[in-house]
């Protein structure tokens, strides 16, 4: 097992302008700055059902009081104008008449009663004909919306039940009288009176959903079974609209724009392109083994059931190797193997078959690493999910209060996030390498490979430490000094890896312009 010191020195390979201490200091400053900035500029809000309910209530209260209308009227108005009280007021004062018409609110002067009115006219004891069931009933069993068109209670009930069970259209339900022409809305008050308990619950659910679904700035979290909604505050001006990254309180991270899993650092179009490419190649990539491979030394099949790529074969072989490139670990170490080395020579004219082979090799290089990181991310999510129980054990084994073990959870969250970024960075790499291969230049790719390699190597250390070294403390003996070392190592790895990934994402966001402007990048330019 390598000592923490050895591990530490590796992070700054290539960072020749800094000493260890300065590097750490610099990255710490960077991290604090960054978290301050992101807290202030967080461009979205997570909403629970209670939040939505409260906001709807507040909006209704304000519309009621400003316009002196009933709660039913306020609800109809707000539903029509995307639940924005401001828009309601603006439209209302611009043209009350057309707003009333749009939502089915009759003018007060025509009929002072908005909503339901139990019919009281029809002086005599004459029965009244219901124009739906064509049955006669005493006048008091009739109801009507504000327009006064009367139908019997039973017909109203089935009318409302059918509408609610037909879907969200019930929120714009109108009087059923054909000559009424939809002039009078059937709103909250009548629903409250004439719908069953279960249907009222459904109606309220539609109202709640309409708050999210009828506004372009709100969406439900796409994670299955998650009940949170996200409100996106569109980035103002200078931000070139790129920060679509949203993390829900359920811990699912997704892209606001396309609602796919977060795919920093590639954009939505690239993601689509990549998915299409994978579908097209699926017959050719079936043979790629993501989870099982033969041991490069003894040939026994090895199933990968861990997240990090440093794999050891079972005894007696015990051969350690890198899962991705199969190289002996004693040679490979934490050097990255992310770069793709083109094989064909450029000097002679290649046959079409050779070109196809070359393209395919390039694709599989990136595809395999993309898929492998997805698997590692999935595994890490599982581990994160059962971390609470693990910490319980760790707390016992090392006599540490559980409160002090939060750094382990932080580490795992960082691993999940970084695996995802790393995964998508391979898609970036694929298209970058394609671009450079086609235009026969080699300018940005080396910088990309360097930054990605740094990030990947940091992540492999972090993942190994959180996965395998942690186990030794959970199931091993209590050793305070070793544990303190472990803690500082894991914390440091978490922080440093986070920074490497921010660097990577930042550089890709700028289209690796560092190379563009300098023309040649001192450390990286290769010929």
């Amino acid at each position: 097992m390598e000592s923490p010191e050895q591990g530490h020195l590796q992070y700054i390979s290539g960072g020749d302008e800094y000493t260890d201490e300065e590097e750490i200091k610099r990255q710490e400053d960077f991290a604090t700055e960054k978290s301050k900035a992101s807290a202030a500029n967080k461009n979205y809000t997570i909403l629970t059902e209670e939040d939505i309910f409260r906001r709807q209530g507040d909006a209704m209260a304000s519309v009621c009081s400003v316009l002196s209308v009933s709660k039913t009227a306020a609800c109809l108005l707000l539903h029509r104008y995307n639940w924005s009280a401001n828009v309601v007021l603006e439209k209302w004062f611009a043209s009350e008449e057309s707003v009333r018409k749009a939502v089915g609110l009759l003018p007060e002067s025509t009929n002072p009663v908005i909503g339901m009115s139990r019919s009281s006219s029809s002086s005599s004891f004459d029965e009244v004909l219901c124009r739906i069931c064509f049955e006669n009933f005493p006048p008091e069993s009739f109801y009507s919306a504000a327009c006064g068109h009367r139908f019997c209670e039973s017909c109203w009930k089935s009318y409302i039940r059918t509408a609610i069970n037909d879907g969200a259209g019930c929120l714009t339900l109108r009087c059923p009288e054909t000559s009424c022409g939809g002039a009078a809305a059937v709103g909250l008050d009548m629903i409250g009176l004439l719908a069953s308990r279960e249907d009222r619950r459904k109606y309220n659910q539609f109202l709640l959903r309409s708050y999210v679904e009828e506004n372009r700035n709100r969406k439900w979290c796409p994670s299955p079974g998650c009940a949170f909604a996200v409100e996106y505050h569109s980035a103002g001006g200078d931000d070139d609209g790129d920060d679509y990254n949203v993390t829900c309180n359920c811990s699912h991270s997704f892209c606001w724009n396309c609602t796919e899993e977060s795919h920093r650092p590639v954009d939505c179009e690239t993601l689509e392109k990549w998915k299409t490419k994978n579908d097209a190649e699926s017959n050719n990539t079936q043979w790629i083994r993501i989870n099982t491979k033969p041991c490069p030394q003894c040939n026994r099949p090895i199933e990968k059931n861990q997240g990090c790529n440093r794999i050891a074969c079972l005894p007696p072989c015990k051969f350690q190797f890198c899962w991705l490139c199969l190289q002996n670990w004693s040679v490979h170490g934490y050097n990255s193997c992310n770069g793709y080395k083109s094989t064909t020579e450029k000097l002679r004219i290649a046959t079409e078959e050779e070109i196809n082979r070359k393209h395919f090799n390039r694709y599989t290089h990136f595809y395999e690493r993309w898929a492998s990181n997805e698997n590692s991310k999935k595994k890490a999510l599982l581990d994160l999910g059962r971390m609470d129980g693990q910490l319980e054990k760790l707390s016992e084994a090392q006599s540490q209060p559980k409160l002090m073990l939060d750094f382990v959870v932080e580490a795992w969250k960082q691993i999940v996030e970084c695996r995802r970024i790393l995964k998508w960075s391979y898609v970036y790499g694929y298209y970058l390498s394609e671009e450079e291969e086609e235009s026969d230049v080699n300018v940005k790719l080396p910088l990309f490979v360097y930054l990605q390699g740094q990030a990947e190597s940091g992540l492999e250390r972090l993942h190994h430490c959180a996965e395998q070294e942690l186990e030794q403390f959970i199931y091993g003996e209590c050793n305070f000094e070793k544990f303190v070392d472990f803690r500082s190592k894991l914390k440091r790895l978490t922080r440093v890896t986070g920074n490497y990934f921010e660097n990577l994402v930042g550089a890709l966001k700028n289209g690796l312009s560092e190379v563009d402007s300098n023309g040649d990048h001192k450390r990286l330019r290769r010929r």
Partner: protein
Amino acid sequence: MQASRARLFKEYKEVQREKVADPDIQLVCDDSNIFKWTALIKGPSETPFEGGVFQLAFSVPEQYPLQPPQVRFLTKIFHPNVHFKTGEICLDILKNAWSPAWTLQSVCRAIIALMAHPEPDSPLNCDSGNLLRAGDVRGYQSMARMYTRLAAMPKKG
């Protein structure tokens, strides 16, 4: 089921009484099945359908009148909102604008109104819709009149 049967029975009785009242519509209930009706409607005057008699077939669902009946033309008709082969009708009240206060009788009236005022923007018969949209009213009318003569008028001996 019981409610729809009761309601249809009321309509049946109403139709018997109103037969004289609306000479343009003749609604008949199937002898053995109260959920199947046919109607004969007169083509409205001052339209290419004038002088024709058109047969409609009604199929009433069990959830009637909460759900609309299915109606189609049995007589061939050249009209932008009627499918030329199947006789299917595109009319909002037979779909999302349905209300239980409509009756089979008033649906017939709505179909007569549709014959007089076609809506070329939601065509089921594209040829006919295209003629109207292109502003070729004459072309539309002569085609429609031809089909009225061919399909909707009693053959003279």
